């Protein structure tokens, strides 16, 4: 059995005004990866390369053991794909779409599809053009999930949804995923969505992957330390400093390598640790992006 569902190695893709640079990415089988980046960071291009829809200029891509894009036909038999810019045929009913997908995928699970219809509060006889945006996203998810894919690729599925529909879609998606053992790549610029679903996080910015680790590692290691320094004292050495804010004697240090021993080290050097703030994934993402951009400028 292949341990990696997705393997990118040194992938490059150059456009006139955008370059995807040296993307290396591993998605182990059975994990759920949140792929976070600002608009235009390269998430969709990476996913299109993964799906074989865009050919990389350099580097290799393997999905479920298949080389992409050459073996995309075989790979896509086991991939469920839903993207923000994907639409179904407005003039046809959801039932027609289900029948169409069933005729293509031998693993189509009809009882599961019926169950999803109920859970998503959809009706098979409804025409797609009569559905709300939220219902269309749910319909696309149903079509992707009921084919029982080994890999589920969701490219910003919640973008453009109003808050209520977004919560509904995410809630249903999490409920569906809770009892499943799937490999999922979930891209979004909304860190809250990703945080709820993923167990691994990858940040992408300006066409480069800037960080990738388990979600818990990000949440455990990223901290903001609020320090108080005695007069004329220098800032103590803190590993993994990403950002230093605050004022001269009251610095706020953001570190990506926090461990409890740091507090003692700070105290030993004369500084007082007034508070240790945990960070949300959004704060981690923003701090990460800003520090990488400053590094690039420097």
């Amino acid at each position, binding site marked *: 059995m292949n341990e990696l569902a997705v393997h990118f190695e040194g992938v490059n893709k150059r456009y006139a005004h955008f370059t995807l640079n040296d993307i290396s990415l591993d998605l182990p089988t059975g994990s759920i990866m949140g792929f976070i980046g600002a608009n235009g960071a390269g998430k969709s291009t990476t996913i299109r390369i993964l799906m074989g829809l865009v050919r990389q200029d350099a580097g290799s891509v393997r999905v479920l053991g298949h080389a992409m894009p050459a073996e995309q*036909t075989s790979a896509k038999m086991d991939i469920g794909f839903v993207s923000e*810019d994907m639409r179904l045929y407005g003039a046809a009913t959801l039932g027609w779409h289900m029948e*169409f997908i069933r005729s293509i995928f031998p693993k189509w699970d009809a009882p599961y599809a019926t169950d999803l219809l109920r859970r998503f509060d959809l009706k098979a006889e409804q025409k797609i053009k009569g559905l709300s945006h939220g219902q269309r996203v749910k319909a696309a998810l149903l079509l992707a999930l009921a084919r029982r894919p080994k890999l589920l690729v969701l490219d910003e599925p919640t973008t453009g949804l109003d808050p209520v529909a977004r919560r509904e879609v995410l809630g249903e998606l999490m409920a569906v995923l809770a009892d499943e053992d799937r490999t999922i790549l979930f891209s979004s610029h909304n860190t809250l969505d990703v945080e709820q679903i993923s167990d691994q996080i990858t940040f992408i910015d300006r066409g480069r992957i800037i960080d990738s680790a388990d979600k818990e590692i990000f949440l455990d290691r990223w901290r903001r330390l609020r320090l108080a320094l005695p007069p004329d004292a220098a800032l103590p050495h803190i590993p993994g400093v990403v950002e230093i804010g605050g004022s001269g004697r009251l610095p706020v240090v953001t570190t990506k390598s926090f461990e409890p021993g740091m507090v003692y080290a700070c105290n030993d050097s004369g500084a007082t640790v007034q508070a240790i703030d945990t960070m949300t994934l959004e704060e981690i993402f923003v701090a990460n992006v800003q520090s990488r951009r400053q590094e690039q400028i420097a």
Partner: protein
Amino acid sequence: MNRRMIGRLIWKDWYLQRWIILASFVGGAISLAIIAKGGKAGFLVGLILLITVLVSIGAQLAVSTIVQERKEQTLPFVMSLPISYREYTASKMLGNLAIFLVVWLVMVVSSLALLAYPWDPHMGLIPFTAIMATEILLGTCLVVATALITESQGWTIGAIMVVNLAFNFFGYWVAHIHNIANGMESTKLMWTSSASVLLIGEFCTIALLLGLTFFFQSRKQDFL
């Protein structure tokens, strides 16, 4: 080539275009009925209507199955299926041609049958009709190829306009080719070498167009 998937995609387009296909059959039947009614005016009106039906369905198919699929963002749905772009191209070429050919064959065979109608034969018009009907087929192939290669509504509409203009000029030119024009008024079929050369040339151009479409599509790197 994944023939099963190509078949499924062709079936999908047939289903989604079923009302257009039905409408063109109805339009074609009305035009043929007007032609069959007889008289010079009826013949001209029916002929113009029939040409309009055939040209329209060719253009409509290319726009709604290729250009609209991209514009209305249903292409990502199609490309998420287990299919390569080469197979997608094959399904669009074959699907469009199959739908068009069904309508085209019924209309052309019926027209030729009307021209050969024993009580009022216009058999002399058969070579001209065959050449012009094939010209419509060629024009449809050009529009489909343009839509597939350029993926652009503007270019496709441009191709439709060029095809329509070319049809008129081509018809005028063919009608003035000496050994075709000579037999047009006859009640007997007068097949000439010029007619054969023109027909063979048209079919060769169709084959070339199809080949070039696959060639250009296979060189594309990005499909979305």
